[in-house]
């Protein structure tokens, strides 16, 4: 069973969403529906599974419905049709109290513009989720201090959010989400409002934290590089439709349609593709010139050994961790794998 299952979810914004449902189910696209009925299609038959402990990145341009999708998971927005199962329970079946309880314990969220409480100190902000859980104040402060330390903000706990820089504010947001100790973390364009250096810093921090905590993270972004770096799986949304779901390599190597192709066109493939993806297996690699070989690990990214190959004009021998030869990459194949579109 997947941690989160989204089954045929539709979301239509407008006065009378139900009346438009048959039309949308018949396959009318976003523009047609808007023109004929004045309703906006937010999500159009989205189904996907998110496994426990993985980082699922949901990607798309603005208006593609990605923020709408993430808000369905904790029901900040209710779907027009479809089911959302979290650990096998349909979140639509919750009544008010159950929903509040669910939000307090199962999920936490990080927001694009941080969503911090300006009238509370950093410490109070981080402890907010615990306050909602009804934890006593000393326990709240202790846990909050731990998380503040984990995101590297020790010494700032008594400041107010607007005394901090953007990057620091988002760290507070991250600490607040971590403090509740929920299994699932929703991150809505969490790093999009930060400048590139700080963004890359925060991505690294998230990866480090994730390698320890193994939470289920649903991450929304419009930045492909970010999604490739963070995601175990990536789902690409276009105009409310899920176009492709797959691992980063899948997306790069086999884009499902022109939209995804356009997306991945400018990506630095060398950063994403590992040696084992492009190698030819030993049995099939008889025609490769084996006189001039450089050994690379199968899990290395192309980027890491590319300069060496280019300078020495040699071929690669791909080995696994214990040194067994797994396959070969010829100079030419390397070239094509990096330029193929």
């Amino acid at each position, binding site marked *: 069973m997947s941690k989160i299952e989204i089954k045929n979810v539709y979301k239509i914004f407008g006065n009378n969403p139900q009346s438009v449902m048959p039309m949308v189910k018949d396959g009318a696209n976003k523009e047609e529906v808007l023109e004929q009925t004045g309703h906006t299609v937010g999500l159009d038959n989205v189904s996907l599974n998110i496994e426990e402990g993985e980082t699922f990145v949901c990607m798309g341009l603005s208006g593609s419905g990605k923020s709408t999708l993430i808000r369905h998971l904790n029901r*900040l927005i209710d779907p027009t049709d479809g089911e959302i199962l979290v650990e096998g329970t349909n979140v639509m079946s919750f009544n008010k109290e159950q929903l509040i309880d*669910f939000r*307090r314990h199962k999920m*936490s*969220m990080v*927001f694009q*513009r941080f*969503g911090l*409480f300006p009238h509370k100190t950093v410490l109070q902000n981080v402890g907010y989720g615990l306050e909602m859980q009804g934890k006593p104040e000393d326990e709240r402060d202790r846990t909050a201090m731990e998380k503040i330390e984990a995101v590297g903000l020790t010494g700032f706990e008594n400041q107010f959010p607007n*005394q901090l820089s953007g990057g620091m504010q988002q760290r507070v947001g991250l600490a607040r989400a971590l403090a509740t100790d929920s299994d699932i973390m929703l991150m809505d364009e969490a790093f999009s409002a930060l400048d590139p250096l700080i963004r890359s810093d925060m991505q690294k921090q998230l990866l480090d934290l994730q390698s320890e905590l193994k939470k289920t993270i649903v991450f929304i972004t419009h930045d492909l590089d970010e999604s490739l770096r963070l995601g175990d799986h990536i789902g690409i949304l276009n105009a409310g439709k899920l176009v492709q779901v797959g691992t980063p390599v899948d997306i790069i190597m086999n884009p499902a349609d022109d939209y995804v192709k356009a997306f991945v066109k400018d990506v630095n493939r060398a950063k994403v593709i590992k040696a084992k993806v492009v190698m030819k297996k030993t049995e099939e690699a008889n025609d490769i010139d084996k006189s001039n070989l450089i050994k690379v690990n199968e899990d290395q990214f192309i980027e890491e050994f590319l300069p060496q190959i280019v300078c020495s004009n040699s071929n690669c021998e791909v080995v696994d961790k214990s040194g067994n030869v797994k396959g070969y990459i010829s100079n030419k194949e390397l070239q094509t794998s990096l330029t193929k579109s």
Partner: protein
Amino acid sequence: MDIKKNKKLFFNIGLLVFFVWLLIISYSSSKRKPENVGELLNDFSWLQKWPKWLDLPLMKWINVGFKKLNETYGFIFEAINNFLLAMLMALKNFLILAPWPAVVLGVTVIAYFASGRKIRTTVFVGFCTFFIGFLHPIFWQKAIETTAIMLISIFLCLVFGMPVGILMSRAERIRNKILPVLDLMQTIPAFVYLIPGIMLFGLGAVPAIIATFIYAVPPLVRLTDLGIRLVDKEVIEAADAFGASKKQKLWGVQMPLALPNIMQGINQCTMMALSMVVIASMIGTRGLGDEVLLGLQQLNVGRAAEAGIAIVLLAIVLDRITQSYGETLQERRAPEKKKGK
């Protein structure tokens, strides 16, 4: 769509029928109508000058209604009257019996804390308070009477106005119903609701309190509503996402963040209450207003001017206290970045 159109049509037809019914009623109840309707068709002189029979007997209805109201529900109004009067008397007697230096000092201390320990504001307010009595010894007691009526009215405004504002911020439908009522309360000339006040409560302070309440409550309601709705949407979403209940959201997030706006509302409310209390001297309410009135009646420019200045001083004192409290609140909630950091 069809049902909607029909509904509108029926509604319009209903309005037309109502209008015709009003015409018939006003014609038949008029004493100055021609002996039979046929005359109207022979003699068209009624088209030139507004005919005496085309007169809606609203005045009669209201008078009859008021009489009935007074007869059947008089005890309710009497209870309200006694309650308000008791409150007013307690407050007034307390302030009048207290030695005047103590009152001046008290106001100064309040100003000191409300302004966040600003010496300038405090001294200024202290001097203004002193000058009210200094202008004319009798003004001291009159100013206290005026202030007491105002404070009771403002208390009523807070008790009734804030909950209404909160309700309005929650539901569009309620807001759409209440907004026109607020407009009405502000546009009906103040004198007009002094009269029903007198009819129900008799001459004196209580109708003044009621009229002041009606006149001064709209800005508080509006600014409470506005303040709550202006709270950053993402901050509200954050509270929701962490499982805040409606009550926790209101008192923990919305109200604290709306407080600067609400304080502005209380400030507006205070100023309008003062102007109304002055007007209320026309119906025999004692206070600074009746000094102005006396000055006018005796053609004593000096006396009227002195009283006018006293009113201005009182306004300054009240404005400084409420205004600076709002400002200090805002500073505390949103402290500026520390300089040189």
